[in-house]
């Protein structure tokens, strides 16, 4: 059917391969994950061609059902409402598994090029039964195929009696499963997530960085086995925490980013020597460091210790109501020649996707 071509073209636009001018009209809901039950609701991507239309102050409608004035309308107003009757935002919530979602996300991302390092090999060998052959151990005999061949032979030779069906195998009927050894990528990689949990990071900011960290985690775990993740939180002091704490901790206090970098450095030195491990560092902050001198200190640690020993350092800065958000500029200023450093800004949920893309589109 002809629509395949249209569909292919649409996919290509979404992936950003053609028609870059349309990408700004991409619609996406939130990439929101519920961690618990491994189930998640995602929107379907769409492209919303601009038209003259009503704006925000038309958020009203008519619904049906019980409810007193003041009650919330669950399921958000859609139906026949402004924006409801027209085409456009085809946001449709569906339940998919986290793995599927990571795949959807991954259609546009490139996998980081994790290199073989260390004595634990990066790839693991796995045997996969994928073929058939004439000889093999009896334990691998493919019963159905063997049976079929025997049946066929008997029918051809006229020995088959439908009234008294009885199939007798012969040596030449027997076929066996055979296997192929496949190498599945297994990585000697560690990802260190560092998060600023200082007072200037509001709930909204924390929510954003947690979402982003969550998605990076989901995406990498989906694609590599045996990835290790370490989590560091910091305000003026840094500490390593477990995953649960990282996603749920609330803290207050000032910000000294260098503390996190120092903590990461210790962690790497102790457990993850660079010749054996692929190291990925991600740091999330609102960029409001306590002092210029500390920012310089950060750059120093980065350029002397962290960057030479890691595959990539991703810095993601969230917009914050307070604070200068100057750290990203400091990084650019001092470390602009470092190719392994990628920075991105996230102002709202829509940006998370672009940010992740920025981190992974180079396939580092």
């Amino acid at each position, binding site marked *: 059917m002809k629509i395949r071509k249209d*569909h292919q073209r649409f996919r290509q636009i979404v992936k950003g391969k053609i028609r870059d001018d349309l990408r700004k009209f991409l619609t996406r809901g939130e990439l929101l994950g519920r961690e618990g039950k491994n189930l998640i609701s995602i929107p379907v991507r769409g492209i919303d061609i601009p038209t*003259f239309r009503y704006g925000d102050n038309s*958020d009203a409608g008519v619904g049906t059902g019980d409810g007193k004035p003041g009650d*919330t309308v669950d399921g958000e107003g859609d139906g026949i409402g402004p924006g409801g009757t027209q085409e456009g935002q085809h946001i449709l919530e569906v339940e998919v598994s986290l793995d599927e979602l990571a795949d959807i996300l991954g259609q546009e991302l490139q996998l980081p090029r994790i290199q073989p390092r260390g004595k634990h090999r990066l790839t693991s060998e796995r045997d996969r039964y994928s073929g058939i052959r004439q000889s093999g151990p009896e334990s691998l005999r493919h019963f159905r195929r063997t049976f079929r061949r025997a049946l066929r032979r008997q029918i051809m030779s006229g020995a088959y009696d439908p009234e008294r069906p009885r199939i007798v195998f012969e040596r030449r009927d027997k076929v066996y499963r055979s296997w192929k050894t496949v190498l599945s990528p297994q990585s000697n990689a560690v990802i260190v997530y560092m998060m600023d949990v200082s007072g200037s990071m509001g709930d909204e900011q924390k929510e954003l960085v947690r979402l982003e960290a969550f998605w990076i985690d989901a995406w990498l775990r989906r694609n590599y086995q045996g990835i290790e993740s370490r989590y560091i939180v910091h305000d003026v002091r840094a500490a390593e925490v477990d995953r649960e704490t990282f996603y749920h901790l609330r803290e207050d206090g000032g910000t000294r980013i260098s503390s996190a970098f120092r903590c990461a450095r210790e962690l790497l030195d102790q457990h993850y020597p660079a010749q054996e491990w692929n190291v990925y560092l991600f740091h999330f902050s609102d960029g409001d460091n306590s002092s210029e001198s500390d920012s310089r200190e950060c750059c120093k640690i980065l350029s002397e210790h962290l960057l030479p020993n890691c595959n990539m350092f991703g810095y993601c800065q969230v917009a914050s109501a307070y604070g200068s958000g100057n750290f990203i500029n400091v990084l650019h200023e001092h470390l602009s020649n470092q190719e392994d450093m990628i920075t991105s800004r996230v102002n709202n949920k829509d940006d998370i996707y672009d940010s992740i893309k920025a981190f992974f589109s180079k396939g580092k």
Partner: protein
Amino acid sequence: MPTEPAKQIAEWAERIAEHARAEGLDFYDTLFEVLDYDQITQVAAYGGFPQRYPYWRFGMEYERLRKQHAYGLGKIYEMVINNDPCYAYLLSDNALVDTKTVIAHVYAHCDFFKNNVWFSRTNRRMMDEMANHATRIRRYVERYGIDEVERFIDTCQSLENLIDPHSPFMRRRPPRNAPRPDKREKPQVTRYPAKAYMDRYINPARRLAEEERKMREAAERSVGKAPASPQRDVMLFLLERAPLEDWQADILAIVREEAYYFAPQGQTKIMNEGWAVYWHSTIMTNYCLEASELITYCEHHAGTLATSPGRLNPYKLGVELLRDIERRWNTGRYGVEYDSCDNMEQRRKWGKDKELPGRVVGLGSPGRQKIFQVRRIYNDVTFLDEFLTPEFVEDQKLYHYRYDPASGRMVVVSRDFDRIKEQMLFMLTNHAQPYIYVLDGNYRNRGELYLGHRHVGVDLDIKFATETLKALQAVWGRPVHIHTVIDDAPMLFSYDGKQSTQQHVDDSIDQPANILDE
């Protein structure tokens, strides 16, 4: 040779058609085609047609529908297109009872297409026309390349809603090659037909003179103006005046023609679906349902009519309102006497005495006659405006909701009839699209295009408006402007091909040739 199920479907189609005709439905010949889910998804993505021009948007729609199907969120039971003969697609893995229901449903849609006045000017050979459009655009793709053609289609799609859905029914201006009216000639003033002795009351001399003066003034004002008066069909204006290549003009015309074709379906969604549900339920429950099918039928019928908070199901609303009308007209609950009765007790009992045994219900009853009339001359707006009653709103538990900035959620505001009705009419009027007019095609005598938005209480989305202006400029070539109201202040948004600007409208800004009267 037709297969067994196909034969069965053909037989049922014939039988149901007979029942439908006996009940008074009147439809074009209907051709049924059975498709599997992937095929029907494709057809649905193409807006019901087997062929459309190559465009990614259909692919997008296809992906959405396919996912919807794959995750079990929705199923397309049928598609039917407004054409003579009518084409209808059935889903191949439907159970027989579903197929029967759907066939009955389809006949009602066909009847609606054929008889509802808002469809009267649509092209009944659209099937062929769509194929022609596809061929033409394919040819342009071959000649100019997919990127360029597609980009232009995108541009046209941005302007797709700038049409005048009422224009097929009236002549807003003289035909293009009509002789120029003589200036000395008296303008033709509307005279309502009246008997001679009533004429001076119905057509009072003062009104005639006043109107004549207005027309003369308007004629004088419109001299040398383009357009002569505010023009809603912006697409037509562009088609006639924008400096387009032939192929571009053709694509613009195609997009416009298809927009006009689909417009009545948007205007009558509630009625059309309500009508179809009314008839599938009438035909199925009276004639075609077998005992063993009852449960499945009920389940699917109920699924169609299911409501959820914050949503208005057009199927449900449509059929309930049609039934309400039928009931009211059967029991005489209409007219001045009923409307002016404010004794609720009396209203509730109204017409009870008419509900005698042996009273005609259904075929031949006054209620049935009334709804046939309704399906002929109303569209969703007039339908709700005329027939929505406080009793109905209460029965259906309708409420008005609004976005609450404090909680960030939609919140029930009230169950006040007037508010609900106003909101519903607002949502349906012009398909919830803003009213946009061409005010000047030669603004400031520099060939700039000046549009005006008739503000009805809701602002335009600024972000989208700015982007749409860019599309408009791509067609028009010269700078474009749109006059609108943002936060109660008149604003002018402009795009000159390089940058977007916005400014408050005050006396320093030149007036366009026409202004929208409030």
